[in-house]
């Protein structure tokens, strides 16, 4: 159990809480805790007994006895489903059993045995000697192989881990038309490799720690040395090491512990399964957190505008993507306020809309017995239910349900006089708008905030919507993600950041990294590149020029 380092000053209350916390210290892994200092003593039978006692009865645990060089009794332990069988046979058993060819005929004393095995015969790069029992057990649990030999006070710990995994295929959640197609998988090693291969630089750093009392998940903190602010890396480290939970099954578990405001509906940590996105963010000066067993990397600090930006914004040309990004932003705003605006205008201020349209709306609503707010809430809730149903259903059925469900139910609701056609249109637009938001968790936040807004609009009209929006905006303005104001670069204003806020400025405009991340190395684009851009491009194939050249010949 890690104790927090609160400052020297401690209030009585804190002390009381702390003493309680101390009393309730829970042991990470009871068996290992007891054997903390136990070492291997060279007695093979004793070693076998101990390991069996610690690991208990497991059918997938293999103990294989054999003789090293035909005379020293030895034993090999491994979990049979976590290892690479071929590698064990060829690279471990064989070299252990046969003398290396260049030592033929020599007599190996038991004192030399350890060195000969390690330096001359073992064909495996990840082989090491370990005498600590706890380390050996942890290695076994990771999927490594332990070889203990009679008379040796150290055992071999050899990396043979091989876990079945998916291949890095197209990310399911963030698909792009133009951009890399690989996504993270569950294996941490592969994920780091995917990052390394995109960042072949000495500046890319990975720090790992183990979190989760029972899962012992490996957590990697990735950052760029010389770019990322060291304070940020320290802070991420500190927040992560304060986490003491039983299991880290996904990066989402960590997210909930490291975010600044735990009750806010808005996500303050971004997750992604795209290596290129992680790399881009690392280069901006953020820190990425990867967890073994989760295909989703976390990126901190996160600000609001990342939720309507996609990877594609940067791979496609800037004029087009600026327009599309604006459309996405409009969709995001739509999904938040459209239904409540409708309710407010219909119930309180019909004079705002042009007369012809108002008449049409009134005609559509003629048969509907409910006030607008009830109608909108009912349709909204059924929409949410439908959406949830589509997600949970098996894929083959899901597609059919979504289209058919929405069309048929909407049409039926209108003909039944249960809702007016305009309401269905509004809700449909809203729902589609929330689908256009690239970040699922941000879309979710706005989707949920719709409901209180609809209620406010039903009670106070436009005035109520404004009250609700002011509350939401004030909350956004008070949020911080690792100390970075949530609405940067808009508030506090930074001209440099505005180039990438609503529009996506050309890459050569964005010469420096975001200011709010307090990076060490600020420049991104070399100024000579920009100069060359501004010079006239070569016109070697201009028809006039080439014609002139022909005549010369």
């Amino acid at each position: 159990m890690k104790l927090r380092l609160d400052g020297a000053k401690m209030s009585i209350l804190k002390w009381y809480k702390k003493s309680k916390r101390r009393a309730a210290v829970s042991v990470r892994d009871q068996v290992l805790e007891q054997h903390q200092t136990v070492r291997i003593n060279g007695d093979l039978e004793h070693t076998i007994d101990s390991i069996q006692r610690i690991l208990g009865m497991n059918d997938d645990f293999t103990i294989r006895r054999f003789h090293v060089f035909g005379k020293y009794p030895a034993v090999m332990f491994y979990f049979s489903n976590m290892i690479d069988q071929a590698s064990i046979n060829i690279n471990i058993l064989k070299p252990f059993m046969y003398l290396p060819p260049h030592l033929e005929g020599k007599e190996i004393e038991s004192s030399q045995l350890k060195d000969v095995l390690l330096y001359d015969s073992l064909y495996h790069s990840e082989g090491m000697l370990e005498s600590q029992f706890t380390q050996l057990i942890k290695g076994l649990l990771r999927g490594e192989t332990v070889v203990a030999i009679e008379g040796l006070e150290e055992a071999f710990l050899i990396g043979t881990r091989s876990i079945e995994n998916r291949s890095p295929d197209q990310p399911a959640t963030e698909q792009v038309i133009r951009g890399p197609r690989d996504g993270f998988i569950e294996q941490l090693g592969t994920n780091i490799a995917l990052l390394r291969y995109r960042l072949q630089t000495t500046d890319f750093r990975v720090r790992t720690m183990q979190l989760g009392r029972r899962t012992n998940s490996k957590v990697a903190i990735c950052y760029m040395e010389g770019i990322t602010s060291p304070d940020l890396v320290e802070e991420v480290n500190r927040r992560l090491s304060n986490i003491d939970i039983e299991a880290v099954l996904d990066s989402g578990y960590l997210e909930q512990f490291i975010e600044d405001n735990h009750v806010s509906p808005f996500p303050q940590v971004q997750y992604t399964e795209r290596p290129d996105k992680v790399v881009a963010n690392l280069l901006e000066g953020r820190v990425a957190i990867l967890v073994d067993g989760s295909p989703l990397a976390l990126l901190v600090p996160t600000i609001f505008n990342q939720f309507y930006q996609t990877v594609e914004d940067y791979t496609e040309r800037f004029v087009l993507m600026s327009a599309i990004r604006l459309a996405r932003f409009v969709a995001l705003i739509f999904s938040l306020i459209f239904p409540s605006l409708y309710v407010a205008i219909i119930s309180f201020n019909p004079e705002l809309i042009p007369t012809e349209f108002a008449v049409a709306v009134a005609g559509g609503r003629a048969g509907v017995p409910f006030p607008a707010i009830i109608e909108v809430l009912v349709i909204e809730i059924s929409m949410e239910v439908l959406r949830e149903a589509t997600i949970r259903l098996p894929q083959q059925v899901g597609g059919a349900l979504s289209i058919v469900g929405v069309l048929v139910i909407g049409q039926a609701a209108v003909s039944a006089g249960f809702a007016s056609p305009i309401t269905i249109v509004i809700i449909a637009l809203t729902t589609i708008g929330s689908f256009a938001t690239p970040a699922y968790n941000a879309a979710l936040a706005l989707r949920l905030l719709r409901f209180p807004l609809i209620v406010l609009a039903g009670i106070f009209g436009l005035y109520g919507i404004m009250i609700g929006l002011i509350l939401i905006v004030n909350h956004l303005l008070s949020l911080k993600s690792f100390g970075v104001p949530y609405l940067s670069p808009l508030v506090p204003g930074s001209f440099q950041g505005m180039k990438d806020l609503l529009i996506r400025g050309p890459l050569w405009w964005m010469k420096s990294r975001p200011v709010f991340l307090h990076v060490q190395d600020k420049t991104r684009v070399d100024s000579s590149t920009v100069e060359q851009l501004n010079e006239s491009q070569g016109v070697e194939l201009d028809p006039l020029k080439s014609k002139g050249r022909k005549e010369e010949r």
Partner: protein
Amino acid sequence: MEHPRQITVFQATAILVSTIIGVGVLALPLFAVRAADSGAPLVTLLGVLLGFVGLALITVLGMRFPTKSIVQYSEDIIGKWFAWIGSVFIVAFFAVLTSLTAREFGEVVVTSVLTRTPVEVTVIVMLLLAAISTRNNITTFAYIHYFYTPILLGPGLLIVVLSLKNAEVINLQPIWGNEPGGMLLGVVTIAALFQGSFIVTAVIPAMRRPQKAMKASIWGMVIAGGLYVSIVVAAVSVFGAEEIKFLLWPTLELAKATSLPANILERLDAAFLAVWVTAVFTTLFSSYFLTIHSASKLFRLRDYRLFSFFILPIVFIMAMFPQNIMHMYEIIQKVGRVGLIITIAYPGMLLLIAILRRKRGDRVEDKPMD
């Protein structure tokens, strides 16, 4: 980090602009016209100048004592007891101002938009909104104002620009007005609309560079005053001075009279009022914040958040005190004029004594923009 000094000049300007621009804009042309019919723009301009005098005094004082708010440095200048009396007046005055602002807007909403809603509800909603928001720290306070400033300026300018279609320059003549006699009172009344600028005393101690506070004050006053003058010009030129005397909220009528091109929205007044909620909110937010901030300094409490809900019932009861709209506007004018003693005369006296006694606060060294 008790006082993170983070507020930039830009943000300080925004705070001033959004604090000054508030519910007063709605009735402003009426006050100006009552004072000097067609001379209304001139009266407004003079009112702005008078308001600026008060603001300049506080800014100079704040720059002299860059780490303290008025409650604290007044103790240094005139001694504990006198300062205590002055500070109590300041707190009480801004509590009253908060309540009147909330009530005034409540009346506007109830009269023009939510006709069946009791005024108590709209007032309490506004006050609750301000009270919840004041629980944030001064940096967030600055962010909130900064964010809303463009939202306030936009519709105000839009109304002015759109009303130019119906403007008649003849309505603005003679520039001096027909009876220059009532001008002085009008100037004082309009200057009272700028009392929100007192918030600068709470802002300077949190500014990154307090020595640049004057720049923020000048800009804030130019922007807010410019908007005020242009709204008065627009209202008078569209309706004419005599017509305005029969309108309670000429600015709102101006919004009704204008329409967007292409007939997107039939009438602008409801939309204008909806957007104006933000303007009123920022004004309320500032005066409420100033009230609890000064009160906590007065009682030497470190945490001003205690007060935010403690003061709420008091402010609400005060807001409900006026019997009706007419009564309310009478009170508002009186309170505003009396308030000038607090917002102009008192700081002026403090500054004079500070100069005579050669009192200065600690300097704040120039911190780099990290």
